[in-house]
């Protein structure tokens, strides 16, 4: 139904896409993969009418088209589900679905018809359990995604572009999304599926198009390629090992929790050792992030004891935690990690400045920030570049540089590689390991279980705000999942 031929696009003289072909058939799920910067999002934006191609043609349903804006593409039947949802948190599902196209009766909005039509659209994709009158802001991420999909369906979308649809979903929600994608496919919907997670690509898609440096490397049938082969295409080199070697021995106990708890966490006893990475696994909502936030003093512990290098401490604010030598690399880079409109250098110096007793910036600290930015290998046009224009991997490195300026004793990583491409992931992994080997105690949270198993010296599995069990770093996925889901008891 969609055919892109020889599509090219450049921005300010930089060729972002060159001579790319892509074809999507009705009822096909077609993956688009590639490292960050490979041109995936530009390609999706061309398909959805956000950008005009400089070269090549876009054919839609057998006709050459040139969409002026996303609204025209929508009207023609091309829906797009962005990574960040376009929803109003304070409005109902139905109000969101029909925003801009509210049905009228005698000049007034026909709320009943709006709810009814939303309900029947929900039913048509097997999501009857979601009420059209639910307030979107109170729904889970998965249901918000369903709302977005229904919004596209209400526009009679014949094709959907899904950009990293599982990035924010919990494991069991991913299963639900799989079911939904398959039902849409069975209806004859064509789906362009952009994802970093290769497992999904193999589970869901019929064909895969690999982009690298703005060019199409290949398009293959999913069944005819292995994960290793796909990664080779994406990075153009063999990744012999994904993870740096683990630490040989545990150092002294750095951070110790005894019976710690708050309103979301109960009876947490853990020890973080110098030189080691402690992986925290658990399903979404099991309290993984709550644990990191509690240690960091955001939502502090109200019960139990915390010791840092043998001394009892009580941390009730991030400022105290930072002073004690704890750094927290948050899960949500955009909202909690970066001041997006400030420069790379400003972001790198944020924590140093906040803690400085001095009023004026000193050249020494700026110099140190520069050294650290270079050490973590941030690739930016300049240190004055606004951080929001960097790729996810580079943003994460800026955040790391910021914390390294304080030489932290304990580092808490919450989803450090979410939304980061394969190559940059390896760099972040190396950095984490290097920090541990220099004597820091690392706590790492990740939804990507293979990553966690590859990185951790020890694992703690959480369930319902408690530690369900501790495992050695050599544990297998099955054991972890049994503990995390409570299937073993």
């Amino acid at each position, binding site marked *: 139904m969609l055919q892109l031929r020889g599509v090219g696009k450049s921005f300010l003289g930089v060729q972002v896409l060159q001579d790319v072909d892509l074809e999507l058939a009705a009822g096909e799920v077609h993956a688009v993969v590639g490292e960050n910067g490979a041109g995936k999002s530009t390609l999706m934006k061309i398909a959805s009418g956000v950008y005009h191609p400089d070269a090549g043609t876009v054919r839609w349903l057998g006709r050459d088209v040139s969409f002026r804006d996303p609204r025209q593409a929508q009207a023609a039947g091309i829906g797009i589900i962005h990574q960040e949802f*376009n929803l109003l*948190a304070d*409005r109902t599902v139905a109000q969101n679905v029909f*925003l801009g196209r509210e049905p009228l009766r005698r000049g007034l*909005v026909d709320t009943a018809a709006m709810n009814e039509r939303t309900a029947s659209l929900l039913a048509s994709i097997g999501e009857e359990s979601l009420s059209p009158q639910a307030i979107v802001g109170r729904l889970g991420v998965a249901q918000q995604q369903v709302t977005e999909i229904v919004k596209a369906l209400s526009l009679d979308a014949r094709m959907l572009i899904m950009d990293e649809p599982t990035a924010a979903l919990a494991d069991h929600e991913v299963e639900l999304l799989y079911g939904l994608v398959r039902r849409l496919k069975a209806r004859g919907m064509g789906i362009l599926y952009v994802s970093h997670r290769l497992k999904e690509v193999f589970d869901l898609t019929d064909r895969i198009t690999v982009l690298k440096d703005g060019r199409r490397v290949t398009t293959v049938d999913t069944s005819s390629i292995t994960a290793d082969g796909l990664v080779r295409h994406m990075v153009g080199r063999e990744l012999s090992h994904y993870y740096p070697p683990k630490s040989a021995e545990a150092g002294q106990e750095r951070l110790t929790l005894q019976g710690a708890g708050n309103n979301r966490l109960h009876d947490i006893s853990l020890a973080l050792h110098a030189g080691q990475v402690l992986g925290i696994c658990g399903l979404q*909502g099991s309290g993984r992030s709550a644990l990191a936030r509690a240690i960091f003093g955001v939502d502090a512990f109200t019960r139990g004891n915390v010791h840092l290098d043998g001394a009892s401490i009580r941390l009730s604010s991030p400022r105290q935690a930072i002073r004690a030598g704890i750094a927290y690399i948050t*899960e949500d880079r955009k909202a909690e990690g970066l001041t997006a409109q400030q420069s790379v250098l400003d972001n790198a110096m944020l924590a140093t400045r906040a803690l400085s007793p001095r009023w004026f910036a000193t050249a020494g600290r700026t110099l140190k920030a520069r050294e650290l930015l270079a050490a973590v290998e941030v690739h930016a046009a300049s240190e004055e570049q606004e951080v929001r224009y960097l790729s996810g991997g580079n943003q994460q490195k800026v955040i790391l540089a910021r914390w390294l300026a304080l030489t932290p004793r304990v580092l808490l990583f919450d989803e450090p590689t979410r939304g980061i491409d394969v190559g940059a992931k390896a760099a972040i992994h190396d950095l984490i390991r290097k920090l541990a080997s220099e004597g820091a105690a690392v706590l790492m949270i990740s939804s990507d279980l293979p990553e966690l198993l590859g990185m951790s010296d020890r694992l703690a599995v959480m369930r319902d705000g408690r530690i369900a069990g501790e495992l050695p770093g050599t544990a297998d996925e099955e054991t972890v999942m049994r503990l995390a889901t409570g299937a073993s008891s």
Partner: protein
Amino acid sequence: MKLREHGVWGALGLTLIVGGILVYADGGSLFTQSSTVSLLQRAAGLGIVAIGQTLAILAGSLDLSVAYVISLTSLIAAETMDGSSGMIVPAIIAVLGVSAGIGLLNGLLITKLKINAFIATLGVGLLIKGYLEQGYAGPAGSVPTSFQRLGYDRIGPVPLSVLLMLAVAGVAWIVLNRTRFGHHLIAVGGDLDVARLSGVRTDWVLIRTHIICSVCAGIAGLYLASRLGAGAPRVGSEGGYDLESIAAVVLGGTVLAGGRGGVTGTVGGVALLAAIDGIFNQLAVDPFFKQVVRGVVIVAAVAIYAMSLRRKAPGKVATA
């Protein structure tokens, strides 16, 4: 959510009970007809402005020019009428026309020149202020007795002006909840990009919102002219209608950032401010102390709303 929507009415009830007891202990009575009526009449003018302000704030904007629009339109009304009943209708048309024009200017400055609403409406307000100060030393024009009935007549115990305010509130409620424009207005305030990507003509929505907000201020100007019997160049700014209307909106639970709230809360907010005024007048308390109490009430209300929001926050973090 419930707290945000209905909290102001609880606070109003509580204030009336406590205030009633205090006034009674002081030897007076809060609920005499004359004191209630004057309380309501004071509230009506602010109420009409605050309803317009509610729309502006819901749309993620705000209007600081309303106080000067009120002064200006009170003068336009009184000078056009100039004591003659025959000129009432032309005067009303002139007032609505001028205020709509000012709203259009506000809206264009905000949407087309991309000037922050705070600055744009402040600038327009100061422009009007300059004109008024240069042209008028004191009250001017005169309003015929027939038009003064708007300010003083009652139907039973209910002043006509209160009915006018309730009518404006009713229209605003329907607009917000039952028209496309209202849905789009709330969407624009909730998230401008979401609204735009959903096909809402966001600029046009904001412009219309500002026109409505200004027209509400114009109606309040008409009402004040009928109360005063003349136009007054400083009636709006001395009455503090700009900041008080915003205070009433916030007291009523509308989020200052836009996208959430409604006119019913604003009516409650206006009533609460009026009740506090009435009680303190009865008690003959130092007016400065009265201002302090109002300030405390507004800050406390916002703090309570913010806390209720924070308690819900884990829901937002549920993805973690």
